[in-house]
């Protein structure tokens, strides 16, 4: 009997060692990541500039230099602890450089990049100016999808999900569709850090809770904004070739130089998926609105509403990931299209 027990124990031993080893490894990783979060944050160049301009520092009170300069007076607000400052800094880094192209440590963006499938996504691709786009005069720009304005107007009804969406759930949608990735938990540090940064932006520029601001969301372009010529993807293709392809590439696959993404893909594996609001087939007003107000970089506002709709229509015809809700067959079809269509187009162009 005792021999039998010891034999069974021996059989269980490798499993116990494996489980214990796995637990210890996970625990050590957790400790390492936790220790890293307590270290000073290595800011991206953009975040260094943005946060120093807004005067982020540890202290009992926070006075916004932006408001003081523009309005002549700035009310003291609740200050930030060292932990709050680090959370804001991490959030800024995530928005500016989601996948950690500029990160100097392998743990710097590990918790952000694991929620994204492609290799091009950064929040800043859509939420330009690190979520706070301004012109040279420091004026905030209409339709620039400001993160601060989005925060102050959170909890409003979302026609797509049918929910009163809190700010964190809006971020989840970005990760799932615009980044073609996975959903972080609502309490995940990733979302919390982005929220901390967005709230800080709100304090820095002095946005009032539940007030409407022009920089909130996209200024959608509807058919009634056009001359009703109809959205033509052929016309869109010509406009795309003329105005967009120099940065985003002829087939929309973006521009990567020495492993660095200079301009993100608008089609293919690294792009937003077909369930994103950017996809023309899901919403025909959003991408057009984004293009009209934010593209091409440095020439914003140079495209007519019908041009924007035509380009959005054309981009909608390019193959891209199906999105998780579409099911495996649609996903497989899109994968096949993404691999074959660029080759077919090259053949057509060659002939």
């Amino acid at each position, binding site marked *: 009997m005792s021999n039998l027990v010891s034999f069974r124990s021996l059989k269980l031993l490798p499993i116990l060692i494996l489980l214990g080893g796995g637990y210890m490894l996970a625990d050590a990783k957790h400790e390492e990541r936790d220790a890293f979060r307590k270290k000073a944050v290595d800011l991206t160049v953009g975040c260094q500039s943005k946060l120093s301009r807004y005067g982020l520092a540890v202290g009992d009170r926070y006075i916004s230099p932006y408001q003081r300069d523009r309005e002549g007076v700035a009310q003291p*607000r609740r200050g930030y602890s060292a932990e*709050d400052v680090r959370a804001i800094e991490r959030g800024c880094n995530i928005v500016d450089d989601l996948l950690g192209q500029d990160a100097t440590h392998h743990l710097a963006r590990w918790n952000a990049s694991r929620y994204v499938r492609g290799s091009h996504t950064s929040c800043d691709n859509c939420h330009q100016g690190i979520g706070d786009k301004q012109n040279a005069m420091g004026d905030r720009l209409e339709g620039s999808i400001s993160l601060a304005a989005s925060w102050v107007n959170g909890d409003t009804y979302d026609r797509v999900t049918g929910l009163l969406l809190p700010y964190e759930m809006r971020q989840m949608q970005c990760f799932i569709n615009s980044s073609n990735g996975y959903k972080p938990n609502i309490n995940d540090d990733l979302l919390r850090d982005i929220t901390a940064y967005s709230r800080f932006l709100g304090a820095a520029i002095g946005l*009032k809770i539940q007030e409407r601001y022009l920089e909130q969301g996209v200024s959608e372009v509807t058919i009634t904004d056009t001359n009703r010529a109809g959205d033509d993807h052929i016309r869109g293709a010509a406009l795309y070739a003329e105005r967009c392809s120099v940065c985003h590439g002829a087939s929309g696959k973006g521009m990567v130089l020495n492993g660095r993404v200079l301009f993100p893909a608008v089609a293919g594996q690294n792009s937003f998926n077909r369930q994103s609001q950017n996809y023309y087939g899901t919403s025909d007003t959003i991408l057009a609105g984004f293009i009209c107000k934010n593209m091409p970089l440095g020439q914003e506002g140079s495209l007519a509403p019908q041009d924007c709709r035509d380009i959005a229509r054309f981009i909608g015809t390019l193959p891209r990931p199906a999105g998780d809700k579409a099911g495996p067959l649609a996903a497989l079809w899109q994968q096949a299209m993404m691999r074959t269509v660029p080759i077919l187009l090259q053949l057509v162009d060659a002939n």
Partner: protein
Amino acid sequence: MNKVFKILLIIGLIGVAHVTSPEAPFGQNDSELSENWANFSEAFGVSEYGVDGYFVRAVRNGHAIFHNTANHAWRFTRRTRSHRINACASCHTPTALAYAFVNSDRFDRRLNKRVSFEERIMRCYVMHLDGFVPTIYDPAVRDLRIFARVVAHRNQLTEGQLPAEPFQ
């Protein structure tokens, strides 16, 4: 006999706990609450968000929970004789809640973590209301946040804004 005695003892203890718990010094019935809502709605310009709608209904529910938590978030309060004391309004004013909202999501040294407004509400349910934890998505949390947003909007509050004088 022994079994019957034990059952009677348990019932007796529950009865004593209920009877000796403090009487509710105040409480609102729903007709009072409706009147209160009408006043609140007018004073805080809720019609700005529409006559009705998801958002307005959430504000109304948040208002009801705030003033009569035991009735409107009953799943998260403990049913004692004193449960009607247990309302958010027992400790907070709507304006104080709004200031708490714009000053939330900060590092709490005592808890050694960042605490969001929603987590503060969850802690209130468990500790001050001696009840149970709603999930972060529950209307018992969400609608209080939306209620706080409307009050903050009416007071034109911005992120991190501090009251002129600290609340008691």
